[in-house]
């Protein structure tokens, strides 16, 4: 592994100054970055450890009813915060469906947003990857690509963003607070991650040295708390990334859908908000025909990037199932297997 400088600043201003140098990278829990460094996939000259920065580890309820989550709040602490889980149950369910208990105890909110794709060709330094080395080409195009993107991909990159957490967040209009040399700014989470286009190495809207300091959810995101679910298909029961996932949230009034939120995970280089589907759902009756129409609309622009045509129909089915579950109501307690489409009751039908 390459040698690097390690800096542990005690103020946000010092951290930003230290990270402004070329070759610098922020280090939070390191659950992704350290693996990347050990594999020689990323080779920073300087690590700026942000885990000791003051004030970034709080969950604050705002006077307007929203919530502000510091970038260093650990995934497990957020998911098990009783008030947070009650207000945003789909977000808590998504968090608990990700990684393992040990990783959730370490991983941070800010790190989750900025984690890198798990495309095997990005991790294998012997393979061509436009993300790792711009202009090198993409070996995933003719490789093992059954889990790659079906929406928003380009000839240059077909990788997906692996986060579960980001999927309900983007559905609920989460915003990201960013601090840099020129002060603090705020953007929609939806605008944080970029689609690959011709520049797959440019993955997000952050300028060099900018640091995510907090994430916020608006008060209106709580109006979905009675009908909000996250559903995630994995290749094994637990401790796996999504093949396809969906966050569905409904506001039901007088037996009709007043407003709907829908986003997909595992299908694109960013958490994928399905706005066209939301429009179909709003004002409709909550029934399977409506859900199927919404699912078709959500995947209307999808196309396989390799041996992954199955993901398009899988995503449609997951949307229908997530909407059905959301309409049935948020369970009083998160399921034993969070976000799993499979029943934990032995012998139950998994394909009903």
């Amino acid at each position, binding site marked *: 592994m390459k040698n690097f400088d390690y800096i542990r600043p005690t103020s946000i201003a010092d951290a930003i100054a230290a990270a402004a140098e070329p070759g610098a990278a922020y280090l939070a829990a390191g659950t992704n970055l350290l693996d990347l460094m050990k594999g020689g996939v990323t080779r920073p000259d300087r690590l700026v450890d942000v885990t000791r920065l003051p004030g970034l580890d709080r969950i604050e309820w705002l006077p307007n009813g929203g919530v502000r989550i510091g970038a260093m709040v650990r995934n497990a602490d957020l998911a*098990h915060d009783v008030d947070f889980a009650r207000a945003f149950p789909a977000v808590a369910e998504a968090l608990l469906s990700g*990684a*393992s*208990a*040990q990783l959730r105890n370490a991983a941070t909110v800010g790190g989750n947003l900025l984690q890198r794709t798990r495309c095997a060709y990005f991790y294998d330094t012997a393979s061509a990857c436009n993300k790792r080395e711009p202009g090198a080409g993409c070996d995933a195009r003719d490789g093992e690509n059954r889990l790659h993107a079906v929406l928003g991909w380009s000839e240059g990159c077909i990788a997906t963003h692996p986060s579960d957490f980001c999927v309900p967040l983007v559905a609920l209009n989460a915003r990201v607070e960013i601090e840099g040399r020129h002060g603090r700014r705020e953007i929609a989470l939806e605008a944080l991650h970029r689609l690959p286009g011709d520049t797959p190495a440019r993955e997000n809207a952050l300028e060099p040295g900018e640091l995510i300091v907090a994430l916020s959810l608006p008060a209106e995101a709580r109006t979905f708390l009675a009908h909000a679910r996250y559903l995630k298909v994995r290749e094994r*029961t*637990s401790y796996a990334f999504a093949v396809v996932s969906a966050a569905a949230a409904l506001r039901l009034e007088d037996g009709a859908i007043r407003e709907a939120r829908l986003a997909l995970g595992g299908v694109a280089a960013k958490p994928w908000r399905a706005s066209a589907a939301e429009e179909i759902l709003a004002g409709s009756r909550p029934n399977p025909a409506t859900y199927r129409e919404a699912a078709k609309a959500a995947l209307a622009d999808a196309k396989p990037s390799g041996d992954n045509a199955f993901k398009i129909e899988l995503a449609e089915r997951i949307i229908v199932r997530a909407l059905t579950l959301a309409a049935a109501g948020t369970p009083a307690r998160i399921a*034993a*297997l*969070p976000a799993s489409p499979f029943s934990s009751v032995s012998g139950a039908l998994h394909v009903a």
Partner: protein
Amino acid sequence: MSALGLIEEGQAGDDPERVREGMSGNLCRCGAYAGITDAVLEATKNLAQSDQRRSA
């Protein structure tokens, strides 16, 4: 260690599925084998009983 953390956090209770989920992600895949799941459930029960005795 994972089992102790799981029991202390009290997230799994007496549900074997929650124990298996909480024990998943250990480097060794035997973390959720039937005998281990049963042992975690039994330890949870024993610890709760000895806590009751202490506070009685």
